């Protein structure tokens, strides 16, 4: 039963106030995409054991989408940040690296 801090309204939201939305930072590939890119965009989601970046919506709260960095093995939450970013904030990446020295870093 997760708690995630919504970066918009600052509430520590219960999992039941939230809706999960899959991997974060996925690039949309539109009408002119190659077959490879398009397949990867829709289906090849990262599924790591360990650090994962994902999307959530504060659906019963402020309604905003945000991102969370979470460990899928321990469910530790490293941080949350607004969805309007293409990459995780540098400070967050540094923090994760410190906690998980084995982490290979964020790859787009």
């Amino acid at each position, binding site marked *: 039963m997760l708690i995630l801090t919504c970066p918009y309204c600052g509430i520590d939201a219960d999992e039941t106030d939230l809706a999960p939305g899959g991997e974060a930072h996925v690039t949309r590939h*539109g009408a*002119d995409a190659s077959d490879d890119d*398009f397949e990867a965009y829709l289906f090849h989601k990262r599924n790591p054991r360990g650090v994962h970046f994902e999307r959530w919506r504060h659906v019963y709260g402020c309604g905003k989408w945000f991102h969370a960095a979470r460990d899928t093995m321990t469910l*530790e939450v490293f941080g949350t940040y607004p969805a309007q970013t293409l990459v995780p904030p540098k400070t967050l990446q540094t923090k994760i690296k410190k906690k998980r020295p084995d982490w290979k870093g964020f790859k787009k």
Partner: protein
Amino acid sequence: MSTRLADHGRLIDRTKAVEFTFNGKRLKGFQGDTLASALLANDQLLVGRSFKYHRPRGIVAAGPEEPNALVGLGLGGRFEPNQRVTTTELFDGLSARSQNHWPSLEFDIGAVNKMMSRFFPAGFYYKTFMFPRAAWKHLFEPVIRGAAGLGKAPSARDADRYEYFYAHVDVLIVGGGIAGLAAALAAGKTGAKVLLVEQTADWGGRALVDGVEIDVKPAAEWVAKTLKALNSMENVSIRTRTMGAGVYDHGYALAYERLSDHAPETTGPRHRLWRIRAARIVTATGAIERPLSFAGNDIPGVMLAGAVRDYALNYGVSVGDRTVVVTNNDDAYLTAIALARAGLNVPAIIDARSKATGELPEKARKLGIRVETGKAIGKVIGSKRVQAVTLAAQAGEGATLEEIKCDAVAMSGGWSPVVHLWSHCGGKLNWDEDQAMFRPDPARPPLGKDGSGFVIAAGTANGHLAAAPAMMDAYAAGKRAAAEAGHKAAEGGAAPVAKSESQDRIEPVWLMPQGAAYKLRAKTWLDFQNDVKVSDVQLAALEGYESVEHTKRYTTLGMASDQGKLSNINGLGILAHSLNAEIPAVGTTTFRPPYHPISFGAIAGEARGGLFKPVRQTPLHDWHQKNGAHWEPVADWRRPYCYQRDGEIVKQAVTREILNTRQNVGLLDASTLGKIIVKGPDAGRFLDMLYTNMMSNLGIGKCRYGLMCNENGFLFDDGVVARLTDDSFLCHTTSGGADRVHAWMEEWLQTEWWDWKVYTANVTEQYAQIGIVGPKARQVLEAMGVKGIDLSAEKLPFMTFAEGSIAGIQARPYRISFSGELSFEVAVAASEGRAFWDAALEAGREFGIQPYGTEALHVMRAEKGFIMIGDETDGTVIPQDLGLHWAISRKKADFLGKRAQLRSYMQDPDRKQLVGLKTEDPEVVLPDAAHAVEGPKRENGMENIIGHVTSTYYSPTLGHSIAMGLIKGGSRRMGEVLEFPVAKDRVIRATVVDPVFLDKEGIRQDV
């Protein structure tokens, strides 16, 4: 025999007698008794039968760990199977029945299983019952199943209610023994918000029976003082009868409060399930005593030593006149001493250790009790109660040295800290060789959301079996928990000082005597309820079920309703020994919630009956209800399927509604249709991405039908878009789709095109939307009184809207039609929906207006060949499949789903495509979802299915059946006759036709 003593009984009130029945027999106990203590006071030793061999079973424990004494409690809507007598507080009128026997508890036919037990070792059923094959289904399995289960299934609806409560605290402390109380005190003093829960009705735990002193006074005084202190702290809450049931991720914990189990006549909820968010959880859950493994250890009268002591001191009940104590540790001497002091006979203490010279053994000897060291119980003699035990050398094979007459045996194999809650969420354990027990490994706690440990074990639960260190540990744990939750301790708070008699080292004994022969091992129980014996675990090891998890599943050890609270460690000891491995290398099985079973009622909470799930209601709900609505659930809404008049069956009502709408005028509550406002300079551009067709070029005041696809290209919603102003649109969605579409819009706006200037608002419920539909629709509106709108076909043509006042109500009529008729869908404020509806009925009377429901709506749209999301679509259909190419823009560079529709399979001309179907016999209606086949069977024996019916009706307008279907390559099959085998020997033939059956030119709607 077991009986009530003349004195003792800390928890009972001898002035308050309580009557209850057991198997119909009327018995008496006292207020404060548990059902267990009351039964024992009435010499009711035999209380149940075991699972597999139907062995006689008596009470072994005094707490929730009880595996045997499970009864059916209560009657009718309050009947509950498998209630532990040890956790059932006695109340007047309590009625209990024993379980799992036939015809009676005393004489149970099933007990023959016991004689056959050598043929039923662990896992025997995997090895037999295979021949003949049919016999398993018809003979063996029914017999096995018939024998399964313990209590009877309830038959009545539950008469009680339940509720949840959400609590947020800094520190949750589970367990109200002296450790939990000390932790609460320490945490409470820091100002942290503390919740302390205790599963029983009483505070203080074992210390009160074990003669512990705190701050140089009897523990009871300290407990009373501490409770007072805690009660006076505003930041501390304490609750009895509340069990910590489970610990989950991110500091979530369940606590199970039993409000009226002990007082069933009270109104209000029976159980309250607390869902707690705690920054830190302290588990001060104490320890559970282990049985010893000797032959006949399951015979009624053999009990845990601690329990024997509890019954004597807490309830003034002696479980026997002559109680043999058998042990491998000093703690059980407390029982012998307590019994002797109560004037009861203890013929011997049989101690497996080679010497017993500590404070307690010496005390026992001084009381004149015979202490036999290096000895074991060879076996217990008796069947439904203990008659004697044989004394044997622990080092031997069980040869009888002497027979000792007795009617009770108090056994102690040592204590296991209650580590369940620590372990639920991943806390790890260490094996403590010295104390022969698993205890929490402080270096590997369960990790919380910030990655730090969030559970702290305290006191006995943390492996500190003696009171003094337990107290220190718990006090420190409380302080630490509060500090980690952000509340620094005030200076000066020192831990209370506890003192108890010192205890010497335990010597682990997994089998008694050590070399017990097979015959003894096959009568030496590990899991009392599931009838798992030492020999079973050894067999599992022999056969290669070596992992502790394999052993558990092969033998069912620890899978009974006590979840191995008594049996697991002993079983592990046997397994490790059989495998020649160390206990920690073998490891434990997984601890899972709940700590102790909790009612399904509590898990469901208040959401039952009328509150099970919300039903959404339109502003016209009450009117529909009063006027014959036959309801249909549509997503979370209820919509009238039709309105039945007196004497009408549903089908007749639908036909009447259709014909009346086509001939005169119908009235439809379309309020459930989704309505979303999309506004901003980029609104048009945004809708162009969302819909397959172009929306940005829609004229103000105009409407356009649109389709929405997901990124996989599949159609998922449709509806009419109206352009309100230059920068704002109103998008209609399907009834079930409003929330989904709104969320879809927000998702794209927030996560992809966040630089686009668009706002959305879901205004579905702001409006009542009422359709006035049929050739006389315009006349009805006019009769209602129209101001500010010209309703004429010229001024308000098809696919436009206007705003003004109708019947004195601010209204916005849309000229859109889902029936093919002249139609005005009028949006008015929801609060005025009913007034508008009434006005329409009133004004429409002379034109023959009648309300119609969803089925008439569906038939009329099918006559027109309009698709219905959910009928013609199922999540795998692209607009092209439905012949909706006209609604897919070729001009747009991109829209959601466009790329997907270019994939090879989407371009396949043999995809299923929408067609109309006309049955050969016009009176025959194709069954819903009937499948069409073609050609010979496929090589795997299946028919070659080419498609299925998506909508099918009898059209009263046309006087023949109509249907639509998705058929492979359908658009190329016009005129073909397809075969629909609808039953084993029935084929319906239908011709592929255009799906538009009525008014293809659209003349009726465009007037």
